């Protein structure tokens, strides 16, 4: 496998790695005010807790709602009102409902500003793998992952930089099956925030957390 095209010049270094909450807050910081945003199932959902209500960010859930509210408290649970992770949510004023084809038309038509997704791997070309481990006995299940991957003006990935055994998840090219090609714009991890430079097919380290830029370059093999 060829080396990762990585550019760490100009990276800002921070002393501590990001824990899960700090990572969610870091992602939230890059969400523009008044943006329309889809937060993927799992960890990306927690970004909502760090969005300033005054910033006017509007959440989309692909099961047919714009202006989605927070998770429902126990006494607020309505089985007809759930998010894409099937978690009960609430309806704030100004929300709207639409059917699944209209919802994915909204997504695929490029109307969302930001989509935040988890990932197994991201390549230097911005290719995303997050739906299938490629294990021969795995039952394939894609959900909305492939639509989300290509369905926003900017796609943010949020993940740990390394697997449990220390293997980098930012890779020269995908070894897991792709969810979408050339679709990722920014990667937020515990150890660093990266931008994908699509023209140069290069990963640009913007900020390092708890590691030096040089350390990260070495770990990623760039």
């Amino acid at each position, binding site marked *: 496998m060829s080396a990762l095209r990585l550019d760490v010049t100009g990276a800002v270094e921070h002393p501590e790695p990001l824990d899960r909450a700090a990572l969610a807050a870091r992602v939230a910081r890059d969400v523009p005010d008044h943006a329309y945003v889809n937060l993927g199932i799992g960890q990306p959902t927690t970004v909502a807790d760090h969005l300033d209500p005054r910033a006017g960010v509007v959440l989309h859930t692909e099961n*047919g709602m714009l202006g989605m509210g927070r998770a429902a408290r126990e006494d607020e649970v309505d089985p007809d009102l759930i998010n894409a992770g099937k978690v009960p949510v609430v309806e704030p004023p100004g929300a709207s409902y639409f059917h699944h084809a209209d919802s*994915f038309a909204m997504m695929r038509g490029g109307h969302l500003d930001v989509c935040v997704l988890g990932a197994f791997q991201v390549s230097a070309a911005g290719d995303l793998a997050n739906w299938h481990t490629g294990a021969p006995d795995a039952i394939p*299940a894609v959900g909305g992952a*492939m639509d989300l991957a290509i369905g926003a003006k900017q796609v943010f990935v949020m993940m740990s930089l390394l697997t449990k055994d220390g293997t980098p998840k930012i890779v020269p090219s995908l070894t897991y099956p792709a969810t979408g090609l050339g679709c990722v714009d920014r990667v937020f991890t515990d150890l660093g925030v990266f931008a994908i430079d699509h023209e140069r097919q290069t990963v640009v380290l913007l900020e390092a957390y708890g590691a030096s830029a040089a350390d990260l370059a070495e770990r990623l093999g760039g």
Partner: protein
Amino acid sequence: MGRTTFHTDPVEALAGVADGDTVLVGGFGMAGMPVRLVDALIETGATDLTIVSNNAGNGETGLAALLKARRVAKVICSFPRQADSYVFDGLYRAGEIELEVVPQGNLAERMRAAGAGIGAFYSPTGVGTLLAEGKEQRTIDGRDYVLEMPIRGDWALVAAQAADPMGNLVYRKTARNFGPVMATAAATTVVEVRETVELGAMDPEAVVTPGIYVDRVVTA
């Protein structure tokens, strides 16, 4: 008045379901799941069915019960694998059920195409992935697309909030999901509702599924 008929017995409302039929089943998780109609579908005894739905059943009720009763030859869905989808998992691993996994947006749009008389469409979703293998690809204005074909049902089973005597439907919150799309894409659409309202009681501006798409309504 349109031609929508009203039924209290969901099995009667499925009269005509035949072995080998393709059945579109609404719902995203349990929201919008036509529970009574799925149970009635089991009761009809129809087998060798193709089921098109977002998921492939949970636990041992609803779609999972239909699968467990060995009535389903093939599932077309976006997300078969869930925490408690062990009935599907078992059948799949035993090679006893066919699976076509379709990205959720393509699933919705392919049914919309069937309902709208579109012969096929170029979708940006899935390009360069396993799920596009064997499909025609085309570059249009510098972007790559995959050719996707319509998905038609012999039947659509849908849950809605209310129907009026014309068969017009409204839904409730995110339980709307696939219902309005599936209602357009089947030869016969059967809808279970929580309430029926009088003629003129439904706001014509707020109707989501016009009665032309609704063949049979099962009342609460």
